[in-house]
């Protein structure tokens, strides 16, 4: 009992001192930003991080275990797995960004129109969103990507479409919340028109929660796109999307690092993105 009390007191001291240094976010958030920064750099300038080629390898040293030279080991063609991961980042990250953008833009337009215009438009768009939600997200993405063709960009579009409903719903709720606020009524009374209310009041207020969702959705999109790539619905090899690396690594039971290295990169990235999203939600 005393131990618990002592701990609670310590924790209170901790929060008090944290309040004093409130300029800095928690350590885990700083770490998360570092991970995301590294991932962004990997995708922009991969050649800075590795001197190995992701496409050609030295077959003499195939399936080598991780070492000082090959951090993540080598694959069945002797290619450096770390180089493959680093060069695969651009495609994995960009496609997740494309997915979030599609969901964000299309979803926000639907949500704005629905909440702002109301009436029959709201009913029609509402049913549309219900329908999008009724088909399990991953199945919807699989069907869309199979119709469009197996490419990473199509996987990104499919993931984006399956995220439209969530953004539409949030945006509509935000618009409804702000629309009836007193200051918006006041702006109408002062002669402001609907466009003014939309740009001046509704969007700036909704922006924060939509941003939190967008960051969260970025993490989810990385997972969905990796899953699609894992099933072989993305670009074929020698592309090295993270999900594809896991899929091709799983054939070599004696070289588990081929699976674990890209898997850890996926988990680390998504965990960081989710942590940032949670921090943003609290900070608001």
């Amino acid at each position, binding site marked *: 009992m005393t*131990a*618990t009390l002592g*701990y*609670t007191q310590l*924790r209170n001291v901790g929060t008090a001192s944290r309040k004093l240094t409130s300029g800095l976010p928690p350590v885990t958030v700083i770490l998360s930003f570092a991970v995301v920064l590294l991932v962004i750099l990997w995708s922009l300038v991969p050649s800075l991080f590795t001197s190995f080629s992701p496409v050609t390898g030295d077959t003499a040293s195939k399936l080598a275990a991780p070492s000082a030279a090959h951090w993540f080991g080598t694959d069945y063609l002797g290619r450096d797995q770390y180089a493959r991961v680093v060069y695969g980042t651009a495609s994995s990250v960009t496609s997740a960004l494309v997915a979030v953008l599609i969901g964000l833009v299309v979803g926000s337009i639907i949500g704005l129109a629905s909440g702002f215009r109301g009436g029959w438009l709201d009913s029609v768009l*509402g*049913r*549309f*969103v*219900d*329908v*999008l*939600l*009724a*088909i*399990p*997200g*991953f*199945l*919807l993405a*699989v*069907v*869309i990507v*199979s*119709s*469009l*063709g197996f490419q990473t960009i199509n996987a990104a579009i499919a993931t984006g479409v399956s995220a439209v*409903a*969530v953004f539409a*719903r*949030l945006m509509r*709720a935000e618009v409804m919340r702000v629309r009836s606020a007193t200051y918006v009524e006041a702006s109408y009374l002062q002669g402001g028109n609907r466009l003014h209310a939309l740009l001046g009041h509704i969007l700036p207020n909704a922006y924060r*929660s939509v941003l*939190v*969702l967008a960051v*969260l959705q970025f*993490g989810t999109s990385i*997972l969905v796109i*990796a*899953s699609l790539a*894992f*099933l072989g*619905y993305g670009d074929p090899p020698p592309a090295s999307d993270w*999900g594809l690396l*896991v*899929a091709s690594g*799983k054939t070599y*039971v004696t070289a*588990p690092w081929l*699976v674990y290295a890209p*898997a850890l990169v*996926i*988990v680390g990235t*998504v*965990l960081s993105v*989710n*942590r940032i999203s*949670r921090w943003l939600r609290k900070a608001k």
Partner: protein
Amino acid sequence: MTSDYKRFALTRAGQAIVVVLLAYVLTFLVISVLPGDAITNTLRDPQHGLSEEDIQRIVAFYGLDQPVIVQLLLSLGRFLTGELGFSLQSNLPVSQIVGDALPSTLTLATSALLIAIVFAVVIAYGAQYLPGRWAAIVRSIPSFFLSVPNFVIGLVLIELFAFRLHSFTTTDPNSAAATLFAAITLAIPVSAPLAEVLIAGLDHESRQEYALVARSRGLTEAKLFAKHLVKPSALPSVAMVALIVGELLGGSVITETIFGRDGIGTVVQKAVTGEDQPVLQAVVSLSAVVFVAVNLVADLASPLLDPRVKLRESKLREKVGP
């Protein structure tokens, strides 16, 4: 059973039917209008060895020589009478293919749901009653679970338990042990949102005065948890069935592939690689039916379970969200 409730139930049921029909139309449009002439590509594929007569018969059956809208009405009409068409790959009736695959997926999904509930309750209990530092660690488990892709969990479990510890073999995917590990794979991402809702509920309930009274009367924390706190904390998770059903159906595609099980997920995968349009259409629209039906039941049940829930006609719209 008031007349208010009856009207609410009827409206919700009507909406559910509309949503299912529209989901069918949307799936049909996605599959057949987007670029790529799946059906004729598949039919002309010499690998299938279809004679010109067979092809003519199939083209006539699906109305492929007619405008899309006619094809859609034809297909929708058959769906309404329970006729799902034939697989382009195997020529078997789609209903038979789905029927054969269903038991395996149902076993997997049900066990996964049970395991997810156990995980969620254990996590929530730990978050509530473990001492400080441990509780903080337990509280971060759900967000960790949500960050690990399904296929990684499956591969790690296979590597550890099949290859190293020999708890099961991948050559017999339908054995009880293999099913258990496949179910755990599927359960982990499902348990995360459940645990989050339970933790939030427990945090709220244990601050209520009745909990304080119960404690002051000498009830142990474990008894308080089991007898008083669990039920009201679990009520909000009824509203999460929607999310869970979707996760179970979508996740089974990956889980079944990794563990080599034959089920709905494998059927989807084969249909995608073989551009088997009727099978894909049937599986997707049937999963929409399942999703909407489960939602409808949850919606109709929640005012009965908790009288405080107000009857709102478009509850579905507010429910799923961040």
